């Protein structure tokens, strides 16, 4: 499939509408943030150019480093759980008939709940006195409390995210799986390929494209997670579930003014950008290797 595409500079015309849309809704605001990050703003009329002062200030912030590590751990945990689980789910979903439709709808339900409602529901759901999850865990003998115990809070946020977002991975993989022509499976059957071989050499390579989107989306969105933990735990207990986005908002609204917050969000943006770039390139290389079938990584 990676034969060379014809070079055609006129293709830019086809891309132009997208570039205009995105430039309008993303680049303009981004420029404004860059502008803020270099100034000390007292009021719209009184502003002083401060250069990179805010960046230096933000980089030295110890709490920021802590929040960054918490964030990295969380996003890593999200990917390790949700990607394999989503692939398994996609493989287990029935392919045809009313069952397939019903399962599709049921699986997608959690994606359609507004994020603040997700947090609110889990807030009740996890309470030991009136919530199902909390009550069940207590029945099983765990001294569970997402408001009192940092580890419990962290695990609850992770479980909530897995519940909320695994369907995204599953739906993408499912659509990818369904695009594999029957002939591939027939050929595999004739060759007597094992289930695992079918997965490794047919399904996985064919899912590469959708899987890449899934990994990047889940990585980005979990890295910017805000509403759900904010509603569920408010970042607590202590700082256990204060992730980067929440820390940023605390700073922006509470202690700092606009300048440092803007500098912080630019650094934040660059971190996500860098990590996504690494992921993207790595996944592209892995994908090409497996296509040749020579690499058994």
């Amino acid at each position, binding site marked *: 499939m990676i034969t060379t595409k014809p070079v055609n500079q006129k293709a830019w015309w086809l891309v132009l509408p997208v570039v205009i849309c995105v430039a309008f809704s993303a680049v303009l605001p981004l420029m404004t943030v860059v502008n803020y990050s270099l100034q000390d703003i007292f009021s719209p009329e009184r502003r002083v150019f401060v250069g990179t002062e805010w960046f230096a200030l933000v980089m030295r912030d110890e709490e920021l480093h802590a929040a960054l590590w918490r964030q990295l751990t969380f996003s890593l945990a999200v990917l390790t759980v949700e990607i394999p689980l989503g692939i398994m789910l996609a493989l287990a979903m029935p392919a045809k008939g009313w069952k397939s439709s019903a399962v599709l709808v049921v699986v997608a339900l959690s994606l359609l*709940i507004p994020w603040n409602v997700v947090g609110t529901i889990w807030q009740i759901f996890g309470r030991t006195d009136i919530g199902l999850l909390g009550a069940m865990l207590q029945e099983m003998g765990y001294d569970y409390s997402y408001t009192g115990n940092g580890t419990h809070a962290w695990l609850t946020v992770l479980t909530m995210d897995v519940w909320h977002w695994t369907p995204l991975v599953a739906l993408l993989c499912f659509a990818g799986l369904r*695009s594999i022509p*029957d002939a591939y499976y027939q050929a595999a059957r004739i060759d007597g390929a094992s289930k695992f071989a079918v997965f490794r050499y047919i399904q996985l390579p064919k899912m590469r494209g959708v899987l890449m*989107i899934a990994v990047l989306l889940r990585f980005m969105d979990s890295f910017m997670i805000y509403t759900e933990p904010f509603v569920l735990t408010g970042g607590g207990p202590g700082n256990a579930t204060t992730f980067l986005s929440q820390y940023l908002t605390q700073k922006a609204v509470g202690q700092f003014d606009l300048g440092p917050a803007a500098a912080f969000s630019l650094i934040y943006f660059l971190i996500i950008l860098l990590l996504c770039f690494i992921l993207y390139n790595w996944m592209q290389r892995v994908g090409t290797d497996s296509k040749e079938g020579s690499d058994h990584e």
Partner: protein
Amino acid sequence: MNENRFQKRTLFLILYIVFALLPIYWMVNMSFKTNEEILSSFSFFPQHFTWDNYKTIFTDPAWYDGYINSLIIVAINMAISITVALPAAYAFSRYSFIGDKHLFFWLLTNRMTPPAVFLLPFFQLYSTLGLMDTHLAVALAHLVFNVPLAVWILEGFMSGIPREIDETAYIDGYSFPRFFLTIFLPLIKAGVGVTAFFCFMFSWVELLLARTLTSVDAKPIVATMTRTVSASGMDWATLAAAGVLTIVPGAIVIWFVRHYIAKGFAMGRV
């Protein structure tokens, strides 16, 4: 062996579905209770079954307007996203041009902007344009994350279609628009369906931008909810009922596109 494997898969699927449905069941359960009952006791079924929470939503314009506004916003956003993304995705999947790889990745980077601090620039931009509190403002703002996603998903589906089809059509004398609309588009129906669903979903649940850019006339349901939550403590019951109702339109959308997702087979057959 085969049977055994099938059973394991089914068991896994059932377990997952139970896990997926429990919190939703709890929300439905809450939506039929009164606030006092939710907070006072643990019960699997509402003891004092009530429709009041739903009545509140269906009779109060502040509530049901939220749903209408959300639907308008999402519809505008979906239409724009897919219209601009289709030709772009085609260009990326079929041609090389200067800067294509960088542009492709750059598009995605626009999803990576942490929303919290971008709220103010958005507010300023749309105030300047006089678009505040209009459906268009929110729909346009949501393009930031939906257009890149739409291009990425569509490109994935289009690359699965052999290029010989395009070439044959051009040799047969099809013009590009005619080829695209009558031959190519039907081939990637599955992709369009999936894309439409994802655009719907991300726009439907987005809160921060939608809340910042609207005040009264175009206030979407997610923003309406936050207001009710903060008024005189937590109105858990109404919130749960509203939550249940927010799932309904999305469930309908996915019901309509389910065939496109499940019949991805058509893509490789030709």
